[in-house]
């Protein structure tokens, strides 16, 4: 018995490239939530995160042909997602208030996400928001997505050392921000 769900990402990409819509559908289902979460962490606004996730996958379809088998699919997808999020932020300027949006999420879309220490986590989020874009991206990939500096450097298209440096700077900044606040 053949299951499409058994195929690796790269195999699905190959199939999608030769016109198999179902393979593409599987790729989408497999990674949509991950991309959405990344986008949400980036912008903190539900609608925007959904837009970013959608745009990421539309771009993925357009770029299918350029995917190189030797690189990792995840890295590739992350790169598209991070670039999309960055462009989106640039286009849409000021972000809406994170807290407001988050409260809405808690009461509305997502009642079951568990108890949250509202003040502490919103404070931390504020701190993350205050980071320069490059540092925020590095923190997002390394801390939230659990990537190694090497993996993050592949996604961001910079040197590994640069990622380490950004993380180092970001840590210092976050620390100062959090200490000053409390």
């Amino acid at each position: 018995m053949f299951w499409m769900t058994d195929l690796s990402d790269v195999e699905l990409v190959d199939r999608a490239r030769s016109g198999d819509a179902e393979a593409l559908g599987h790729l989408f289902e497999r990674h949509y939530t991950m991309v959405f979460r990344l986008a949400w962490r980036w912008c903190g606004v539900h609608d925007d995160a959904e837009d970013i996730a959608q745009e990421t996958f539309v771009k993925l379809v357009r770029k299918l042909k350029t995917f190189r088998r030797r690189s990792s699919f995840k890295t590739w997808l992350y790169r598209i997602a991070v670039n999309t999020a960055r462009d989106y932020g640039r286009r849409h300027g000021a972000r809406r208030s994170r807290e407001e949006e988050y409260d809405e999420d808690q009461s509305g879309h997502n009642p079951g996400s568990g108890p949250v220490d509202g003040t502490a986590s919103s404070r931390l989020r504020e701190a993350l928001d205050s980071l320069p874009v490059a540092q925020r991206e590095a923190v997002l990939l390394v801390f939230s997505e659990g990537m190694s500096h090497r993996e993050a450097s592949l996604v961001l298209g910079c040197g590994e050392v640069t990622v380490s440096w950004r993380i180092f700077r970001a840590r210092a900044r976050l620390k100062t921000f959090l200490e000053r606040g409390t």
Partner: protein
Amino acid sequence: MTDSKDDLKRRIADLPVPEPRPEARGKARDAVMTEFRRLGREERIKGMARVARPTGKTPEGRPVMRKLAYATAGLAFCGIAAAIVIPNFLNFRLKATSSGSRSNLDNIRSTEVTTSSAPLADFEAAVPTAPPPRMAKKAKSPASKQRMRYSNEPGPPPLPQEYVGRDRFEKITPNPVKVTAEEPVSTFSVDVDTASYAFVRRALNAGHLPQKNAVRIEEMINYFDYDYPLPSDRSAPFRPTVTIFPTPWNRGTKLLHVGIKGLDITRAERPRANLVFLLDVSGSMNATDKLPLLKNSFRMLVETLDPEDTVAIVVYAGAAGTILEPTKASERGRILAALERLRAGGSTAGGAGIRRAYALAEENFDPEGVNRVILATDGDFNVGIRNPEELKNFVERKRKSGVYLSVLGFGQGNLNDELMQKLAQNGNGNAAYIDTLSEARKVLVDEAGGTLFTIAKDVKIQVEFNPADLA
């Protein structure tokens, strides 16, 4: 403690993240699949010569026929399904079904082994480019929620398959066989829709199968011009053409074909038209086969109007708006300029727009003329009157006031054919699907007589069969 290295990392990693909404996921999926199909089409176009079109007639070369009803041949089909069953047919048919190409059919339209669907079966199987199913039905993976099939062997790459998207079609149930001894009289509603043909053609040209419920056989037949003789004079507005011939795929039965030709309204006699274009300019219309095609189609229609006809334009997206008050067609420039200015953007509020369009049509109502709202959309009415039932009732109420509705569908991926059909039916109008400019010309110009300038409404036909001759 809070500044310990790992603690910070853990706290950031643990920040709660909401889940995406299922609607957003569905929308994203549709967008992805639409893009995938678009790119696939582009590639195929690059890679191959122009697909021969089944209706490749040049518009100039064909006489402008004003037809009342293409339903004719559709009736013929209903006719065989409903009534003409010659003795011993039953046995023969069952054999034909079991030995026939049933597996092919599964792809096109579900066929129960019922008496009525058998004659239709081979007709459907003859749809030219339908690729055979790749695998027996039972091998379908239970994990797959899609309607697609795939195969295990490495073989050639899978055929491009239609992702059904959110194009919605009403389920088709074939009419059962009737016995003429019990019910000698059959009544048919005349229907001049052709949307299904264009939709199916588009899918096949793009190299994938249409949804089974998108295939409405009567519309395949309605689509074409049969050159029936015209009614001789005004006293008999309809002229039937009846032919009986042996069923090509089944020698045990005969087909009855009832063609009806309505009076040809010449241009000079055409009543004044009071048209309101209700145009969907929501964000989803932003594709080459949608808004730009829509603009060109309506431009073409405007070019053919008489100077006394009036046109108004209402658009709906985030908010409904009148962009052109009723304007005489003699001021063509103003109408065309208004069309030119249309831009896509925002979400769809079909309900609000429909109210405004009807209000304009009523304001400018001409009791002698044709009063019609022409709705052009790619599908959903996702804001405004949320309840399709309510929308339908509204359209039906308005039909009593003399304002009718025609619905033109554009694009693919979001088409709500079911609602389109219902709205058109309740609004005393018709629904067509526009995939190309020549299709637009066919519907809006060549056949305006059958679709926009009607000579009759609510036409029903009764055929009485003689049970002595016919089982």
